[in-house]
């Protein structure tokens, strides 16, 4: 065992008063849409957008993320990603 220990910070999506109930579907969707709106408004390198990215990766089932990503690439995603 090495002498140095790194502390790993584990976080998940923070509490959002807009979605206080067990059903977090809309929370997941809202973060997904907000991330892509953030990207299109501020560019991919804008650091605060990462908060939305981490939130939707924590909340959304991976199948939904890949389905929405495919739809986005095809242009068939019904959500509005423009600010």
């Amino acid at each position, binding site marked *: 065992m090495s002498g140095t220990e790194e502390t790993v910070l584990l976080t998940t999506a923070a509490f*959002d*008063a*807009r979605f206080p109930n067990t059903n977090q579907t809309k929370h997941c969707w809202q973060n997904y849409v*907000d991330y892509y*709106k953030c990207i299109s408004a*501020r560019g991919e390198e804008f650091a605060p957008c990462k908060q939305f990215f981490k939130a939707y990766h924590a909340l959304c089932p991976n199948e939904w993320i890949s389905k929405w990503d495919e739809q986005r690439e095809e242009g068939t995603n019904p959500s509005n990603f423009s600010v």
Partner: protein
Amino acid sequence: MGFGIFLKANPALAPLFLFAGGGCAAAVAYPLYLLRTHPEIQLDKKNNPYPWQHIKQHQNIKFINATPDFYAGRKLLERPSY
């Protein structure tokens, strides 16, 4: 007319009609109230498509709140914005 006469003949039944009538009124009024205030119901798709966005981070939308300090402490939180 017939109801008034019936009630005068049986005054002991008045509380029954009071509470049952109140319950019926509540059964009508509560859904209408929800239509107006619930954050997940979209009524006006054009002007208010996302009603849940109006909820502030220090606002509690549930009926019972066992930890009011939690919400009070969120008054200074800023919404991550882009």
